[in-house]
């Protein structure tokens, strides 16, 4: 009865506080929406991403044309060969990148094919000489055929690496082709055969394939929505420390908490009522954030959040996370005496736990030390639990490690909060 009365009191207090309502419900919705939109590009599949590259091909021969055609046909790159209606030169291409108009410039020098052929001939002759078929060639002292890629300094490192990797792969393919052709030509010369040599299919030698870890996996891919919705839901739920500790300390400062202490047998119910009410607030936040991922974000052109089909598992995850988040808020409320101390510590600690817990970027891309540190972040446990339920379709047994960690954390925080609040009563 007393717990219900306190829940009702807390509900009335929150309902009459538009600022508090906005902080608890509206801000997280805005946060998850903005963060999902902002982080959409870094999470996007680069196969569906077309990148402009300024291209000057002075070779005008097999190698240059092959690189150009392969890049253009990949769909990932759009080659810019003219600027303001004029064909580009090496100098204007450099200018376009150094002025920041474009992010990358590919330069294929004149006679690149001719020089590659010359170098390939030396390689083939060298191979043949090993079998005593041809004379040993003179040592190749010329520089490598240099295909230059110039990047704007502001380009993201992963985009730069992807582009370099793609060009290197194309160039390696071109080298193979030229080498095989030259080898074939030499063999034909020596045997006097007019038949075309069969071309081996190198792609059939080694195949790297991906396997799905469970049925339905291929429908999913980690994307901005799939990462940001549970991550920022976690952040918002742990940010309950802000209104909860603030409310507690305000009541302590204005004397209403003292009145509760003066009412026999009400302290436990008062604390329990506050805990239960804020637990439900966290639950509502979680549902609200899922609704954003399921219904709002797709309207903004983002992928729809995948939450799996196990409603009971989702409810269990939400319950454990809410219990832990609310208990943390109670512990902070008990540990500090002033608004300023509690709110500063509460806010900074949640931001730190979020950072090491993989809210901003997934834990697996963090430095090793932070990956180790993430093991102590309840936000990391919560996020992992969400991924287990939403993406990995784990059963209850597999959820147990994260569930246990969150429940033990909640129990420890509640015990600490009760001890600290009780100590204030009998010091």
């Amino acid at each position, binding site marked *: 009865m007393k717990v219900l009365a306190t829940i009702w*009191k807390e509900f009335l207090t929150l309902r009459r506080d538009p600022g508090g309502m906005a902080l608890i419900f509206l801000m997280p919705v805005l946060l998850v929406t903005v963060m999902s939109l902002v982080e959409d590009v870094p999470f996007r599949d680069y196969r569906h991403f077309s990148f402009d590259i300024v291209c000057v091909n002075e070779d005008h021969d097999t190698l240059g044309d092959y690189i150009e055609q392969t890049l253009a046909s990949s769909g990932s790159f759009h080659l810019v060969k003219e600027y303001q209606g004029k064909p580009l030169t090496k100098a204007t291409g450099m200018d376009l990148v150094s002025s920041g108009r474009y992010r990358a410039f590919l330069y294929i020098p004149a006679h690149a094919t001719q020089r590659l052929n010359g170098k390939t001939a030396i390689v083939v002759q060298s191979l043949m000489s090993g079998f005593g078929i041809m004379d040993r060639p003179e040592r190749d002292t010329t520089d490598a055929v240099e295909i230059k890629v110039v990047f704007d300094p502001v380009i993201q490192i992963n985009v730069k690496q992807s582009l370099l990797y793609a060009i290197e792969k194309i160039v390696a393919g071109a080298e193979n082709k030229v080498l095989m052709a030259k080898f074939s030509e030499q063999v034909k010369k020596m045997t006097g055969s007019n038949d075309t040599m069969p071309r081996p299919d190198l792609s059939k030698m080694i195949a790297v394939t991906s396997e799905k870890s469970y049925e339905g996996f291929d429908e999913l891919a980690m994307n901005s929505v799939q990462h940001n919705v549970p991550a920022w839901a976690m952040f918002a739920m742990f940010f309950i420390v802000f209104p909860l500790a603030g409310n507690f300390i305000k009541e302590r400062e*204005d004397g*209403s908490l*003292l009145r509760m202490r003066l009412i*026999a047998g009400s302290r436990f119910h008062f604390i329990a009522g506050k805990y239960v009410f804020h637990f439900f607030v966290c639950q509502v936040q979680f549902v609200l954030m899922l609704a954003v991922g399921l219904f709002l974000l797709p309207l903004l052109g983002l992928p729809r959040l995948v939450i799996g089909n196990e409603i009971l598992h989702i409810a269990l995850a939400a319950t454990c996370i809410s219990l832990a988040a609310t208990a943390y808020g109670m512990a902070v409320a008990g540990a500090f005496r002033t608004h300023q101390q509690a709110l500063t510590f509460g806010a900074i600690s949640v931001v730190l736990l979020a950072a090491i817990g993989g809210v901003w970027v997934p834990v697996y891309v963090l430095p090793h030390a932070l990956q180790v540190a993430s093991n102590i972040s309840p936000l990391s446990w919560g996020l992992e639990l969400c991924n287990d339920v939403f993406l990995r379709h784990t059963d209850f047994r597999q959820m147990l490690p994260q569930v246990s960690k969150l429940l033990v954390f909640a129990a420890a925080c509640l015990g600490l909060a009760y001890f600290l609040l009780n100590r204030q009563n009998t010091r």
Partner: protein
Amino acid sequence: MPAILIDKVTKQYAGSTTPAVRDLSLTIARGEVYGLLGHNGAGKSTTVMMICGLLRADSGSIKVFGDDPAQHGPAVRRRVGVATQDIALFPSLTGLENLQYLCRMYGLTPDHNKLMPLLERFGLAADAGKRADSYSGGMKRRLNLIASVLHDPELLILDEPTAGVDVQSRAMIIAYLREMNAKGMTIIYSSHILEEVEKLCQRVGFLSEGVLIEQGATADLLQKYRTDSLENVYLTVSGRSIDV
């Protein structure tokens, strides 16, 4: 059995070099109105908190209606009402909601037929549906007092119950306290307004630096120090103004 029996109680806070209350002995009879006076930091609040069992004495003993509040805090608090100097209410709840909530926390059913007459008695019935934070200082004080007597305490402790209130509110509060005392309620009254104390309290005690430096019947003290005001008595025994 007296309402309160305090025997040689000392309390020193951790980190403090001097005791907040030192060797305090005090007896308050049932049905008495006792004025507990002293400047800020004299030890009044510490004494009140120990009477309620919210602070433990370092030494000495306290009995409230025969019970040790440190051992039987809940039992003592069921018989004690405290109107603190701070307005200990929930500002976003209405006056009526505050009382209803506190009734439930006392384990009582909020009875409209009991609450509304109290609100009417203190001139708050018309504003019962308004948020407490919209009340004037006097209205908040009156509501604070009602909140302290919802469980019909046998002992009522009031800390500056008329601070910053208008004449009308002060008159209502004093009249109510007289009525409750007439019905047998024991009252400990702390105030800087010594005229009120003179009129209301049968006995007064002066605390200074945690020590009870003087106590006695109001009339006896005025006669002993040959003065017509408790203010002068306090100045004489403590060497300082009560407002300091």
